[in-house]
């Protein structure tokens, strides 16, 4: 028998039918739904007189448009409100399970799936959202889809897809103190570029990955899409299984034992071959800070905004020049000399309990710098928020001058009221530093939660490894 990759196993166990050109029909186990990319899909379904194929596979939650301040008055913006109500109505009409805005379990779709045990090893998971790659941390085949595909999955429980190539990203060794999964993700993107993973499914492997918690693995897989890969994944081990035990949607009783036995097979066989292999030494990875308008425009915190002379070619030179102008930065500026106006700790990349604990450990007993106008912490879900409050993290943040908010996507993409004003510079734990992402004219620097908290206290980027 030939050795198989984890991706081979996940793919092959879901093929319903395959055409001669490799186009396949793939069965979908879990369909996560949010309010932004689903209205047109439900509408299409209804117009065609269809119903969801397997309603039990769907879990819905509003996250992008929800306010992160007091929700007792509902959503002020009528267009946002209509979108959330449309989700509520569609879920009610078809009997889809939905964690509504004021449900304690509400949160960012990619936080709540794993938290509920609704994401399990061996599953195919889709959502009309590119960061669905997050769920691959559980050895699931998980990827983002467009709205037409949301409708397709609703109607048929299947997706039309072609198998990708397999890439292994191997990180061996121990991370330095203060260096996190986020820094691994940014370092990988810095190395292979935002298109480096296009056409691939990435498996993250190596001792540094095995040493990560599930939260860390989710952060890493979350950003696989920023490397161009639709899916990222990590093999099952004890960390995976321990995390899932006792979650509301996890299998129980004798099913649990059978499931665990199967899940243990979800790893690449020895000698399995990959179409591409990228290797990093964990000890070399520095805390990362993006300086530009694409996640690949990233350097270590001790570095500088690169000089045009270092650009690969003419196209990249043009991109960098535009990025300098947009970001209001000059070549060769030291990263640690960049002062910030706002801090955002949150998003499906870094809003889980471990992220909040890490940020709180930096903020504890300190004060947000005077030049920082707003530092906000937005937990990934109501349950993360409750847990953090139980541990007193909210108090640490508030005492330090951070705002403590209700769960949702918030300033990751600024569809709700949380946003940057033109020219404002933000240290953000989210995943995209595109022009306008956090508000028109807003300038985003992507960092880890520790680095964001340290920047909030210092008022500019600092090396969290030297942080006292």
């Amino acid at each position, binding site marked *: 028998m030939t050795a198989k990759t984890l991706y081979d196993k996940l793919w092959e166990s879901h093929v*319903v*039918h395959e*055409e001669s*050109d490799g*186009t396949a*029909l793939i*069965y979908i*186990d879990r369909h996560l739904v949010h309010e*932004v*990319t689903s*209205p*047109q899909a439900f*509408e299409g379904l209804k117009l065609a007189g*269809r119903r969801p194929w*397997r309603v*039990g596979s769907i879990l819905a939650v509003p996250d*992008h448009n929800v306010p992160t301040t007091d929700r007792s008055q509902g959503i002020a913006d009528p*267009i*946002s409100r*209509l*979108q959330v109500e*449309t989700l509520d109505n569609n879920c009610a009409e078809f009997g889809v399970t939905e964690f509504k805005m004021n449900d304690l379990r509400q949160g960012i779709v990619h936080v709540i799936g794993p938290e509920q045990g609704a994401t*399990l090893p061996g599953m195919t998971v889709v959502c*009309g*959202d*590119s960061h669905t790659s997050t769920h691959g941390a559980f050895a699931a085949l998980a990827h983002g*889809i*467009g*709205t*037409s*595909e949301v409708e*397709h999955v609703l*109607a*048929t*429980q*299947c997706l*039309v897809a*072609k198998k990708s190539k397999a890439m292994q990203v191997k990180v061996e060794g121990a991370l330095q103190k203060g260096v996190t999964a986020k820094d691994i993700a940014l370092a990988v993107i810095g190395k292979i570029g*935002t*298109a480096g993973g*296009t056409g691939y499914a990435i498996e993250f492997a190596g001792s540094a990955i095995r040493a990560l918690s599930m939260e860390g693995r989710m952060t890493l897989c979350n950003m696989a899409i920023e490397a*161009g890969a*639709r899916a990222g994944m990590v093999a099952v081990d004890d960390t995976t299984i321990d995390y899932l035990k006792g979650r509301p949607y996890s*299998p129980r009783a004798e*099913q*649990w034992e059978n499931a665990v036995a199967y899940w243990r097979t979800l790893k690449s066989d020895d000698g399995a071959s990959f179409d591409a292999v990228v290797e990093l030494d964990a000890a070399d990875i520095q805390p990362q800070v993006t300086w530009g308008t*694409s996640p*690949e425009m990233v350097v270590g915190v001790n570095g500088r905004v690169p000089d045009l002379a270092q650009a690969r070619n003419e*196209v*990249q030179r*043009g*991109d960098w020049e535009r990025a300098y102008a947009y970001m209001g930065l000059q070549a060769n500026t030291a990263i640690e000399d960049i002062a910030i106006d706002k801090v955002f700790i949150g998003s499906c990349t870094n809003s889980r309990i471990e992220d909040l604990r890490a940020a709180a450990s930096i903020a504890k007993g300190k004060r947000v710098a005077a030049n920082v106008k707003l530092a906000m912490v937005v937990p990934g879900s109501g349950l993360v928020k409750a847990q953090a409050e139980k541990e007193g993290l909210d108090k640490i943040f508030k005492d330090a001058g951070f705002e403590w908010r209700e769960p949702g996507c918030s300033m990751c*993409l*600024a569809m709700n009221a949380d946003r940057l004003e033109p020219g404002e510079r933000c240290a953000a734990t989210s995943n*995209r530093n*595109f*022009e*306008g*992402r956090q508000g*028109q004219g807003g300038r985003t620097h992507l960092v880890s939660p520790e680095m964001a908290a340290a920047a909030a206290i210092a008022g500019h980027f600092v090396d969290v490894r030297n942080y006292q």
Partner: protein
Amino acid sequence: MDSFTTLDGLVAPLDRANVDTDAIIPKQFLKSIKRSGFGPNAFDEWRYLDHGEPGMDNSKRPLNPDFVLNQPRYQGASVLLARENFGCGSSREHAPWALLDYGFHAIIAPSFADIFFNNCFKNGILPIRLEASIVDKLFDEVAANEGYRLAVDLEKQTVTTPSGESFAFDVDAHRKYCLLNGFDDIGLTLQQVDKIKAFEGRHRIKQPWLFN
């Protein structure tokens, strides 16, 4: 879905790499629950000088004269010439909806982001991958010749320049078939209902916990 067979269209160049879907259609327009009407807000932040919000009368907004698509010579373009990794970022299908509504039916670039590439086919837009050196050459030719057009033939899988030079491109057989005929996948997939049900039955026996 509309079919795509051939197109002879005016070409507009967008000379930057990694154009993301946030740039193609900014998030404030994603609050719509409709599929149509996104064209006037395609590239909104680059295209207008003011800040756009849903519900504005876009015809009264100040255009950014420096944005290439605003130049008179590119009005009415239906072929977009772009650079590497076009359509990266968010999976929003609002991006191809906006481009189609704007009038683009084909996009030529050295590479595309996966989800965007896929989303185009679902909406009758043909994304065409050509080698970077050919794309470079097309950028030069567009710049040098006002009114520059390209002829795209999906059946033959060719792009032809005004001078008659022709470049072949690849396209999946399945996608080509759907696009040529304007078929949407759901109808085709539902012809396989028996296979899906049979698979589901086997899958349920192997991993019953997936069906709790």
